[in-house]
């Protein structure tokens, strides 16, 4: 391997995504603009205009639905396809998300988490991507701009190994428009890590013509679904291997699907996804200095869900405070709900409380983490939560 000398650039999360797509040598990009995703596709258009990429096909489609349809067409043809969207756009794509996964096409998409309307909002909220939970896509939640960049490059490798599409999720504005140092990987090393896609089938091979998207009767449909389910199971291993390889080559290890710290001596941990975990990590270190026995568990991959890693964490702590920047109406925070489901079959069941935070871009600060830590301490002492779901920020 060539010696790794990172190229440090100060970029927004969106530019990190665009550079990652460029370094992954994407071949077809089909996209439609939506706030706050726009600067991703603007940057890619710039790469093309400036001749920084060779013959990249950019399809400026007339809707997100068509963006994903065009990605499906391109990916089925054999190309490496990429797109990006947000909220309403992601929801419009919904039908096509099922299609991309069902057709087993390794498309990678960046979703900039944005609250669903109404009321109209352009700010951070995870409900848009989590509402796509059952489409068959893998989902990776980035904490910072570096993880956006790394995530896109790794996602292609994982997706093309298991033939399942992957969504890299970043926070509106908090990441998408906030500049930070990102260590980028020299092109030849990205190429080493991520060789060109080798599709199993293409739509250019007339000698072996294939039909994609055929009808399956009840006699066959079931097995197609089982195969996709197995692919997600396989992805758990592939994600760890790819994350490990990435760490060995570039020094940032992603072999854990849940990044965790202080688990072994923590009374309770904060669990959550995405940029809010950056705040949590900082707060945890501060609070530990004040004597709190706490840690954190940052869920990187929501699909496939890291069940074993979560059960392992649960076996070591007395409580989990689940922070959800999302909500499933008629139920509870989505990560909380998932975690409870996974832990039902665990030997050790910690006390759990769900804090609904930051919806629609409401600020979530270190001070909020401190308040939740104080509350959670009481929950642990009592052995059960006062309320299972706490609308923490609510103006009273």
């Amino acid at each position, binding site marked *: 391997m060539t010696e790794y000398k990172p190229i440090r650039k100060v970029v927004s999360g969106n530019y990190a995504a665009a550079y990652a797509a460029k370094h992954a040598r994407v*071949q*077809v990009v*089909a996209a439609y603009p939506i706030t706050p995703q726009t600067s991703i596709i603007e940057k890619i258009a710039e790469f093309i205009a400036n001749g920084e990429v060779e*013959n*990249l*096909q950019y*399809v*400026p*489609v*007339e*809707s997100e*639905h*068509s*963006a994903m*349809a*065009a*990605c*499906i*067409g*391109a*990916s*089925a*043809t*054999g*190309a490496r*396809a990429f797109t990006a969207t947000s909220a309403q756009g992601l929801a419009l794509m919904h*039908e*096509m998300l099922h*299609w991309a996964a069902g*057709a087993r096409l390794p498309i990678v998409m960046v979703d900039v988490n944005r609250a669903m309307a109404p009321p109209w909002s352009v700010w951070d909220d995870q409900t848009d991507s989590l509402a796509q939970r059952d489409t068959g896509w893998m989902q990776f939640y980035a904490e910072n701009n570096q993880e956006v960049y790394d995530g896109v490059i790794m996602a292609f490798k994982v997706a093309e190994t298991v033939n399942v599409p992957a969504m890299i999720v970043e926070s509106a504005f908090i990441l998408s428009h906030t500049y930070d140092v990102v260590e980028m990987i020299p092109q030849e090393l990205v190429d080493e890590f991520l060789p060109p896609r080798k599709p199993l089938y*293409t*739509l*250019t*091979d*007339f000698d072996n*013509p*294939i*039909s*994609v*998207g*055929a*009808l*399956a*009767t009840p006699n*066959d449909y079931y097995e197609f679904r089982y195969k996709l389910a197995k692919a997600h199971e396989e992805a758990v291993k592939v994600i760890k291997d790819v994350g490990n390889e990435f760490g060995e080559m570039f020094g940032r290890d992603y072999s854990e699907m849940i990044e965790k710290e202080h688990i072994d001596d923590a009374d309770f941990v904060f669990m959550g996804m995405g940029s809010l975990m950056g705040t949590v990590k900082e707060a945890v270190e501060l609070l530990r200095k004040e004597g709190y026995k706490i840690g954190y568990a940052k869920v990187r991959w929501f699909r496939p869900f890291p069940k074993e890693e979560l059960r392992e964490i649960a076996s070591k702590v007395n409580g989990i405070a689940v922070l959800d920047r999302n909500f499933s109406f008629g139920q509870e925070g989505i990560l909380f709900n998932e975690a409870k489901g996974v832990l039902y079959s665990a030997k050790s069941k910690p006390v759990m409380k769900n804090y609904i935070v930051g919806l629609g871009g409401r600020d979530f600060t270190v001070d909020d983490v401190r308040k939740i830590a104080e509350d959670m301490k009481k929950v642990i002492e009592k052995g059960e939560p006062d309320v299972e779901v706490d609308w923490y920020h609510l103006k009273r």
Partner: protein
Amino acid sequence: MAVRKSPITTREYWAPGHAACAGCGCATALKLATKAFSEAMEEKYGDPNAFAIAQATGCMEVVSAVFPYTAWKAPWVHVAFENAAAAASGVEAAWKKLGRKGKILAIGGDGGTADIGMQALSGMLERRHNVVYLMYDNEAYMNTGIQRSSSTPYGAWTTTSPPGKYSIGEDKPKKWVALIAAAHQVPYVATASIGNPFDFVKKMKKAAKVDGPAFVQVHCTCPTGWKSPLEKGVEIARLAIETGVWPLFEIENGDFFNIKIQAPGGGAKVKREGGRVVAIEFKKPIEEYLKLQGRFKHLFKQPEAIDEMREQIKAMWKVLGVDVTLPKPEE
């Protein structure tokens, strides 16, 4: 004995064994269209296989590929209902990137094109993809069981436009997607019919050979949805042309002032001025076309509805720059 040469390639791209209804006019259209496409690719690129197909959900999709079988002897992708044009855009972009020369054929029915696929079609045409979009127009949602589409003609019975005490059946004029496509000023737009297969093949080849997008709207009989005799598909389609119900035209680069009109036959008198068709005097009344189809049966009890249909047909021809006279049947 002299063997007559086939007027079109004997290669098959839509193989027998598909599950289309007996007498399906759309099956004929797809068979001819793919043959024409292949010939055009051979003539243009020296490679009869320089194409791939993206198809919308619909009759012709459902009957063609039932896992693990497929009737398609060409690379084929189906990406739902509303987006054959968008999927074809992606396939075409990937072909370009991967250095494969050729053209993409997108196929959709009237529902998948005139209604739910309108936006994707407009996008594909506007972006100037190297795609031919073939709309097989059997004038209703036949796959789901004969519901009206915006391409259903005035007066027709469908399950969602049933005639009754308060209804004459479909009460809106037919939406002509070919004219909308032409407004995108794309290189080539044409209407065609299985009632004139030679004209259809010629137009498909022309569409396949132009650089950039093309749109062909082909009239296809549907004995199931039209309640018409299985063996009379081509005859009925030809009567649509001969009575003035179905115009055959070509519009290049959106030049609405120089629309090429094909002579309808059936004894119709065509008047030209400076090479352009300006008037057509049809000799066969539209009743000859209508009476062979159960979907128009109820109209014969309401002759004023048939007269209204005549007015709408005249108005449509007017858009094409042609004054037509439509005879009434002799009493």
